[in-house]
């Protein structure tokens, strides 16, 4: 037996009460996990326009499912607790116990998986943001193209809210035409020169949009001719740090989401601990109450345990059971046919024996 403990009536009652409280705490924890999942999903949706794929959504989806399932499971556990000390009502739960343990263990495993997944998916998130932001910056000027007309506003608000500029840094804006052709005067020499200076015929300039400007700078924002020291008085491009936001938006967003997931890590771990303690306490309660019922004395002292045999033996037992179930599923059609034949033969024999008995009776 694994972890054998003696339980008298008083201890059983205490265990039931404690477990009832614990399972209601676990219901609250399940609600907390669900709300966490909803919050995370909403935050991901808000920035969905700068994300290329939605692999990262697996984390909040699993959290929401686990939260809901855990609310139901732990509520059932509290009902089992309430009925456990009543001899007439406890037996009806016996059938569900194994299923309950399976579901609860699965929930714990899923929660652990979610924690690991949130770290594993960081790379995918980064990739997704890289592609999404690159597209956002490329389509910044397309405010007249349906389907892309909100990119400008999205990127501007993003840069202002997260205090970042460009994908890796502000130089990403130098490689992209972010001023639309309909605002360019193609008769001016400067515009024609710039357009001719590169293969794709794009109007590139060493300037950034206004949303890159840092309000903490002591100087009014310099947006144009950033690499030209002589264009502005008392300006050195290499040493100027406060003028624009120096962080890239990809880094800013990754930090934000990782912080969010890391801060929820301890909460999820404590939920896992609570769920495991509910499982173990319920197992003890189940075995001790069943032991007491077997002795046919509700007040008697009984033993509670986690596993009836040792871990290895239980594992062997389970394996054997599963195999027999599988074999039984295969053999069953043959066994049924054989059983039918033998039953038919037996009937014929019985019929033969019976008839002489029947005819003799009316004679007498």
């Amino acid at each position: 037996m694994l972890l054998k403990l003696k339980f008298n009536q008083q201890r059983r009652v205490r265990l039931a009460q404690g477990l009832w409280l614990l399972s209601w705490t676990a219901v609250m924890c399940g609600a907390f996990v669900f709300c966490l999942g909803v919050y995370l999903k909403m935050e991901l949706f808000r920035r969905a326009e700068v994300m290329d794929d939605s692999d990262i959504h697996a984390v909040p989806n699993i959290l929401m499912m686990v939260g809901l399932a855990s609310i139901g499971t732990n509520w059932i556990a509290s009902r089992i607790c309430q009925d456990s000390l009543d001899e007439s009502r406890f037996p009806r739960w016996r059938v569900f116990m194994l299923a309950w343990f399976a579901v609860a263990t699965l929930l714990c495993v899923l929660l652990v998986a979610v924690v690991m997944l949130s770290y594993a998916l960081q790379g995918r998130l980064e990739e997704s943001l890289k592609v999404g932001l690159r597209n956002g910056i490329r389509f910044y000027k397309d405010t007249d193209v349906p389907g892309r007309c909100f990119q400008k506003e999205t990127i501007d608000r993003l840069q202002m809210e997260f205090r970042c500029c460009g994908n890796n840094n502000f130089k990403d804006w130098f490689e992209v035409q972010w001023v639309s052709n309909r605002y360019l005067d193609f008769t001016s020499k400067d515009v024609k020169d710039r357009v001719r200076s590169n293969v794709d015929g794009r109007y590139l300039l060493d300037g950034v949009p206004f949303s890159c400007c840092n309000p903490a700078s002591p100087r009014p924002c310099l947006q144009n001719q950033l690499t030209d020291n002589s264009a502005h008085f008392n300006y050195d491009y290499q040493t100027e740090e406060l003028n624009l936001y120096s962080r890239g938006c990809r880094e800013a967003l990754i930090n934000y989401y990782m912080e969010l997931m890391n801060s929820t890590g301890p909460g999820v771990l404590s939920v896992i601990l609570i769920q495991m303690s509910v499982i173990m306490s319920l197992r003890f309660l189940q075995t001790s109450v069943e032991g007491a019922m077997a002795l046919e004395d509700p007040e008697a002292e009984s033993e509670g345990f986690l596993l009836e045999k040792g871990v290895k033996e239980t594992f062997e037992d389970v394996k054997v059971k599963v195999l027999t179930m599988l074999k039984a599923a295969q053999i069953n059609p043959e066994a049924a046919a054989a059983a039918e034949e033998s039953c038919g033969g037996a009937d014929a024999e019985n019929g033969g024996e019976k008839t002489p008995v029947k005819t003799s009776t009316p004679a007498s």
Partner: protein
Amino acid sequence: MAVLKVKFTKTRRDKLAQVLWILNWISVVTGVLLFCLGLFLKVEINKREELMAGRDVQYVPNMLIAVGLLACAINFLGGKICYDCVDTNKFLRWKLIILPYIICTFFFTFCVLVGAVMCYSMHGELEEALNVGLSDALKFYKDTDTPGRCFLKRTVDMLQIHFQCCGNSGYKDWFQIQWISNRYLDMSQKEVVDRLRSNVEGKYLMDGVPFSCCNVNSPRPCIQQQINNNSAHFNYEHQTEELNLWMRGCRQALLEYYTHIMQSIGLTVLILSVLTGVRYLQTALENVLRQGDPDSESDGWLLENSLMETARTNLNIIKSLVGRTTPVNHKAPPTPSSEER
């Protein structure tokens, strides 16, 4: 002749007590709400105190906080009284306190109404404070090297971005002040010298605005410099261009924001006047006790006699109280002749 007399049976009295108990608890909740709103207003005003000059607008949130706390206490007591009113034994305990309690609550309701009126009257003072504060802030925008004013640039920029506004009344306010510091101006250039000479005070004025005035919803990259010059930008006309910069002035934006808070507070306060019914309950029960049968019908009224008579009786009571406290001793009134009889 009583004022507004209504007949009350026992069930009606009980129902009235229950309804009043619920209303009193709702009033406790609104008292808490009022306290929270007053606190919120205080925090919000403190956040922007750099932009409000001189005028003392703190008296409104302070009054609201005090009124909120008092409302909680008074309505909690009222709830307790209503709860006990149904049981005549417990009612006797409260009988002596009810009349002073009702007088207190009438005064308190008056104070609460004054508080609500103050919320609306603050509007004018707030506008003045914001006007002066914002024009000062715009003037000192460039002084990021002067201690005591170095944060104003950041404050004004964040304000314009957050409240989606530009300047005091509009974006043209920026044309009238020098918002670029002299240490970033190249005095050797002809253009700079011309601009400095073009006005009496030697300020570098330009038709440009800071980046925080830029409208995020504009389809076009933001035009901040040479705003009034149509030929400086392609396909641009400054008279019809509306989406380029924020059109609203920051004074109006902040005023709307604070007025919105005030109006919610004012509305909450006006819901607090729930106490008229307690008077009915008290008079009905007093009448019952005089008749001696707790289950019978009784009358409830606002005032026992008409207004004039009540005023006269109260005046007499006050006169007699004042008479008793003066040091001159009046002769004791003659003993009633009924004893002799």
